[in-house]
């Protein structure tokens, strides 16, 4: 049933966010540290284990896939709720700081990527 997939996704999300919150309080910052990233790793491992033992039914998977397909619309909603007006009217220093940081960080992408040999995308399409 689709709800099984969504529930697995929910449990992985909550567990990851909990660990992220825990990390944050250990380091004495009032912020979640990597909760989403940890949740993603949990989901990857859970899905892999279920797949290996053939227990990940198609219907179960559809409960995860819907949410993974809906994130582009969610990103559109994120964009539509940004303080764009504030950013454009933030003054020259804030704009310059943002622009130069983006340019500098993007320029580092190929350099850092060279630490590991590049690999192609996983073959199957999602």
């Amino acid at each position: 049933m689709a709800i099984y997939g969504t529930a697995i996704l929910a449990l992985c999300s909550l567990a990851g966010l909990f660990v992220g919150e825990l990390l944050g309080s250990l380091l004495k910052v009032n912020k979640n540290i990597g909760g989403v990233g940890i949740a993603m790793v949990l989901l990857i491992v859970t899905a892999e284990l279920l797949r290996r033992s053939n227990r990940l039914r198609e219907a179960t998977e559809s409960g995860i896939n819907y949410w993974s397909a809906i994130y582009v619309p969610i990103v559109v909603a994120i964009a539509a709720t940004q303080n764009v007006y504030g950013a454009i009217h933030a003054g020259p220093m804030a704009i310059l700081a943002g622009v130069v940081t983006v340019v500098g960080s993007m320029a580092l992408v190929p350099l850092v990527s060279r630490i590991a040999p590049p690999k192609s995308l996983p073959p199957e399409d999602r």
Partner: protein
Amino acid sequence: MGPILEKVLIDNSLVTAFAVVGATVAISYLFSDKLTKGRLHGSAIAIFLGLVMAYFAGAFTSGKNGVADIPVLAGMGILGGAMLRDFAIVATAAGVRFQEIRHAGICGAVALFLGIFVSFAIGGGIAWAFGYRDAVSITTIGGGAATYIVGPVTGAALNASSEVIALSIGAGLVKAILVMTCTPFVAPWIGLNNPTTALVFGGLMGTTSGVVGGLAATDPKLVPYGAMTATFYTGLGCFFGPSVIFFLVRLFV
């Protein structure tokens, strides 16, 4: 008629948001097909349209939450809020191979730490160039160049002035919006077409909204990789900003 319609839209704000976003995406894919012959990705146009709507909403309501400050569109705040955002991003991981992250894990970690320190350095350097000479203001504006959350959190921890905190939020917003809009155009130059570079990209840029938006507009398959490293960035930035980085800045000024 009018007030009744308004009531229905407001009472069902999340449902309204689904309809509005769906319409935005549909128009964007139509534009992408007919006007750019598919060269500009439909999702890139949709994200850009979202930002344009947010600009006008901000200009009319003078609020900070884009279209979510318009009562009938308040549901956009739920759809684009942290809860559903995180939930959907985690879901994208279902298609990721574990070997891919293990393979590029070190790269991602290096990118994460380098990204935080480089952003603070550039932001702080620009603050210095604009005449700020105290370590608190330099570190806070540097934090803003990391993300629009790291800036104010760092500023609050260091007791920065509210003017400086506002500037740091501004710098972070500019960064997030630039990453969202420019990534598809820059991607071919920086080799952003595989999981490894996406992990590195997420770690270096750090702004989760920016990275997720930028990668969605470039190649949706890359989103989970970039998101994975980016979600560590803000938390670690808030940790390093008021501590190690503030200490380093104080050595220089």
